[in-house]
């Protein structure tokens, strides 16, 4: 979330799409209801189903799963056509005025310029700003690499760079300025097209578009709208682009950085934010530092690649905070390898494994199936269930040598070898050794968790783990220490990073999470002095924040964005001050939020270019001329002393300092502007460009389990989701939740049920090209048949919560089929998230 949960109460307009917060985030959704009650805010719900969120909405539109970009693109078109945009914001805080290189082509035929059909990827050289002085022709010091997908880094061509001095046209009239390109790109997304592709009748779409953009009626900047989404947007082969479209709308309407605005991702798990921050993902290191690639032959090359230089129109300023990247990276290396990380050995940069291709979730299973990955450790992660393509995952595990599962309940992953359908005879042929280790539940562990609003909150242990169960950190520590012992005794392949990994916890086998948290915050390794204030931090002291980090090895910090969370003043994440003087729900004194305890990101954008709040009744930060700095109710997300006349862009994490309507040089791999592509399995050909129906960057695996259905056989669009009564695959072990929703069901429209002669509560089969799911029919009017491109299309939906181990499952009360038996293992090219929403199925009576 750019903003926070409580901040939603400050909004005037909510577009909730690709998410169902009433069901999945009820306690956060209270602030949406608060906005409705206290401000008469309006709520628009766009979803394939009429959900419990929709029940509270002022307007509900049923959309075909996977067509969100069309809807949002239509919204952009509507806003532009009806002049419901924030002009000053647009010109000053976004790259609307930037001029794009000649040769850039919009995807009117489904492809942007530079597509290499053989490699299945784009050459990004035309996806760039035009340099004001021809500087873009020189590959100089300005670097901003697109290499989020590392595979390409091994290639010979150097990645394109942003020009330091960008050509621009503040009148937004230049035919190649971003604004004009944007206009052209979305001119195709007319209400008629929206209706044809999404299934939303055009009058309803226009009603919604009018309502949503009404916050900018007559150029008024006071009102604010927010867009709220969840995995209904991410789980597509174009998920990142859906979210980008939303961000673009918010930039167009000037809603980013403002109280009650923003683009708000509602994360689905208590610490999915923290897990991402801490880089439990192959392609990043803690604090969103990019993972090194083989071409990063030394630390310098690596740092040069990942540290951007500023790129902006020359009269403007850009803070370009990521120019500090080397400080973050070196401090991380110091934190990981301690004294072994020295200037002489490039801070042990070689110890870090280099990634050269996609090692993401679906690839793990594919590579395990193909015999590459031989061992797996799964902690608190039910890999078989989470999918996609459960069958493939089970068959991959059959080929593994060993599997370690750390869990609190018996789960499907640890029992993959006796999944339904595997006979005792077949079990005897499965040679995987499985260790199932009893871990600790949430109440048995202390530590911090970071919520969707980036608040890291400390919790305390209430009870000891039951029986022989152990704390998760103790188990991981024990495994690591025993492996290290083996390498110490026996040697082996490149033991240095193992032997030299810093493990300086008082009790190495039982690391105290407080000590870990202090390590994450970072400390001074030598006496440090702030040159301007003269403040001194002594060696060994906790750092007050990331501004103190150094790239010379005199600081260690496990995760720069968490620097400030455990200072000399103690654990900031355990703070419980709940005063909110501004009434905006900022709560500066409650727990701690990254970065630097800021609650609303990009909050400089809540003010006009002169530094005055757009809406004086919702003052977040503002420029104090007398003091010569930015002050406010929140921590300014800005260079504190940059006066408005400097024209520094508010989006300080971008090298341009502005919000990107146009995503240059492949930071988004599948296009600078989002374009609608159909889901991999779709009932129709993409009406925009039938010859390029799907995202051209999507790759399919080749195992026998990677099968895809066609609309002639599988005509029903299916989507998966959670219910408010359950949490993933966890609460099927909790009798209270099982009582609420005891059995799996499939929600099907009344019309489809009538057609098939299915009555509510009857057992039905949902069949995709990959598997069969069985559950009871939930015949409902909350899903209606839709007209898609002249074709009647049904959508059905099924909750994901049941599997083959659980209270009801063990009692034989359901068919014991996981929902992800149905889903395909195809992913978004940017985030590598699988497409669990909007695949094709057929149904029949069981």
């Amino acid at each position, binding site marked *: 979330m750019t903003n926070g949960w409580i901040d939603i109460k400050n909004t005037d307009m909510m577009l909730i799409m690709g998410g169902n917060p009433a069901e999945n985030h009820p306690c956060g959704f209270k602030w949406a209801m608060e906005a409705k009650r206290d401000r008469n805010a309006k709520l628009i719900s766009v979803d394939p189903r009429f959900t419990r969120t929709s029940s509270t909405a002022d307007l509900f539109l049923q959309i075909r799963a996977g067509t969100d970009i069309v809807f949002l693109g239509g919204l952009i078109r509507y806003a532009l056509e009806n002049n419901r945009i924030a002009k000053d914001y647009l010109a000053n805080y976004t790259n609307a005025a930037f001029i794009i290189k000649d040769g850039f082509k919009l995807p009117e035929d489904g492809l942007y310029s530079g597509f290499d059909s053989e490699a299945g990827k784009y050459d990004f050289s035309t996806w760039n700003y035009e340099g004001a002085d021809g500087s873009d022709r020189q590959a100089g010091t300005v670097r901003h690499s697109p290499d989020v997908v590392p595979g390409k880094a091994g290639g010979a061509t150097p990645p394109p760079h942003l020009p330091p001095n960008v050509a621009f046209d503040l009148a937004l009239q230049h035919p190649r300025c971003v604004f004009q390109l944007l206009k052209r790109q979305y001119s195709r997304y007319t209400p008629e097209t929206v209706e044809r592709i999404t299934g939303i009748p055009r009058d309803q779409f226009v009603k919604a578009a009018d309502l949503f953009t009404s916050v900018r009626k007559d150029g008024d900047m006071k009102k604010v709208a927010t867009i709220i989404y969840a995995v209904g947007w991410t789980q597509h082969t174009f998920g990142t682009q859906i979210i980008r479209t939303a961000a673009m709308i918010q930039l167009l309407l000037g809603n980013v950085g403002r109280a009650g605005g923003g683009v708000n991702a509602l994360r689905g798990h208590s610490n999915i934010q923290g897990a991402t921050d801490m880089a439990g993902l192959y392609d990043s290191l803690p604090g969103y530092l990019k993972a090194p690639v083989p071409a990063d032959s030394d630390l310098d090359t690596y740092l040069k690649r990942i540290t951007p230089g500023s790129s902006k129109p020359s009269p403007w300023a850009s803070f370009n905070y990521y120019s500090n990247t080397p400080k973050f990276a070196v401090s991380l290396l110091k934190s990981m390898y301690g004294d072994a990380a020295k200037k002489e050995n490039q801070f042990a940069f070689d110890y870090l494994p280099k990634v050269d291709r996609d090692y993401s979730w679906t690839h793990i299973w594919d590579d395990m199936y193909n015999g590459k990955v031989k061992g797996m450790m799964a902690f608190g992660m039910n890999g078989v269930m989470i999918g996609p393509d459960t069958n493939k995952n089970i068959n991959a595990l059959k080929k593994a040598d060993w599997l370690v599962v750390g869990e609190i309940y018996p789960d499907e992953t640890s029992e993959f070898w006796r999944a339904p359908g595997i006979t005792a005879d077949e079990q005897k042929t499965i040679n995987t050794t499985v260790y199932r280790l009893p871990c600790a539940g949430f109440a048995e562990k202390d530590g911090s968790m970071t919520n969707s609003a980036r608040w890291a909150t400390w919790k305390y242990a209430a009870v000891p783990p039951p029986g022989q169960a152990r704390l998760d950190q103790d188990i991981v520590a024990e495994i690591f220490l025993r492996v290290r012992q083996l390498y110490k005794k026996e040697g082996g392949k490149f033991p240095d990073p193992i032997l030299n990994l810093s493990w300086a916890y008082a009790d190495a086998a039982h690391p105290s999470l407080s000590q870990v948290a202090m390590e994450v915050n970072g400390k001074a390794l030598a006496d440090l002095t702030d040159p301007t204030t003269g403040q001194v931090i002594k060696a060994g002291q906790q750092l007050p924040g990331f501004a103190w980090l150094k790239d010379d090895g005199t600081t260690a910090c496990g995760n720069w964005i968490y620097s400030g969370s455990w200072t000399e003043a103690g654990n900031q994440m355990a703070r419980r001050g709940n005063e909110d003087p501004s009434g905006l729900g900022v709560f500066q004194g409650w727990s701690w939020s990254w970065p630097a305890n800021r609650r609303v990101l990009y909050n400089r954008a809540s003010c006009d270019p002169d530094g005055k709040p757009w809406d004086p009744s919702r003052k977040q930060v503002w420029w104090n001329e007398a003091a010569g700095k930015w002050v406010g109710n929140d921590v300014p997300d800005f260079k504190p002393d940059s006066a408005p006349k400097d024209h520094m862009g508010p989006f300080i994490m971008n090298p341009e300092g502005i919000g990107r309507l146009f995503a240059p040089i492949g930071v988004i791999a599948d296009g600078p502007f989002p374009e609608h592509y159909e889901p991999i399995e779709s009932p129709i050909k993409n009406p925009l460009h039938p010859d390029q129906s799907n995202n051209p960057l999507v790759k399919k695996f080749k195992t026998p389990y990677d099968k895809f259905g066609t609309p002639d056989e599988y005509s029903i669009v299916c989507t998966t989701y959670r219910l408010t009564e359950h949490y993933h695959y966890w609460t099927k072990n909790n009798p209270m939740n099982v009582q609420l929703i*005891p059995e799996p069901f499939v929600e099907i429209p009344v019309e489809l049920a009538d057609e098939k002669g299915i009555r509510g509560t009857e057992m039905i089969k949902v069949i995709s090209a990959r598997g069969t799911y069985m559950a009871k029919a939930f015949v409902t009017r909350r899903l209606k048949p839709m007209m898609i491109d002249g074709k009647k299309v049904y959508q059905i939906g099924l909750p994901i919560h049941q599997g083959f181990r659980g209270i009801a499952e063990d009692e034989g009360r359901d068919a014991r089929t996981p929902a992800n038996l149905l889903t395909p293992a195809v992913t978004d090219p940017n985030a590598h998230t699988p497409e669990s929403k909007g695949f094709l199925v057929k149904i029949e009576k069981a």
Partner: protein
Amino acid sequence: MSQAATELIRISGHAGTVPGAGLNREFQVCKLVDTTTCIGCKACEVACLEWNGYTFSETTFNNSYQTMPETAWNYWNLIKFNEHEREDGTLMLLMRKDQCMHCEDPGCLAACPAEAAIVQYANGIVDFQEANCIGCGYCMTGCPFNIPKFSPKARKVFKCTLCNDRVSVGLEPACIKACPTGCLHFGTKKEMKELAETRAEQLREHSGYREAGVYDPPGVGGTHVIYVLHDAKNPELYGGLPKNPQVPLMVRLWKHPLKWIGNFGIIFGVVGVFIHYLRYGPKVVEGDEDKGHGAKP
């Protein structure tokens, strides 16, 4: 008599005066259920179940999100769901938290024959005292909302207590505390009524629900659980909320006229035969010297 007994303003099956009637200045508590902000999440159901610590029962899927068809002796709080299609074709998913309404004039208490099995406190809470309950089930019949439920195991009747164990120490009921969207409120009856009316007005003026209103049925003297409904003209849409609930006529007839007629009749009968005896005496059989020889049939 402990002073605390003066907290009682009604006692079931009780002869004579009620210790607390007319004595109290304690404020009346009230739950406000704003169905227009209910998201049917069932947090209230679980909070209730958890706090009261009852056993779990097996449920089955019934083509609805609803946990079970109606409340149960060990499940006092149930969200009732209804997919309602309006005339303009738009859909509403109506969700209403069903629980004891804590009527001002409780039909259960009126019907209960067991002394102090049901009491009403000065703060308005109608509380079942299972220790005194005889399990006759009259309360189930007396209640116009189908709330009290019989436990075959305990052979007694149970219902929501409005968490009087919590309320008596100054806490809010468990369901109120849990409610994520604030669709549940707790406070004095006066304030909840005002809040409800304000919300209903907002719904009428800003959300296009022209029939929005407050449900505080006068037929049972008002309730200590009140609803805000999108459509106060049709409460039945909300899982069968009765339009005009009353303490049933039969219970009233039984409790009042019949009782007086019956009591009078019995007394009249006994007195009548006594007077008859005084006036006419026994029927004596002349010459009968009944010696009391035992018969051997």
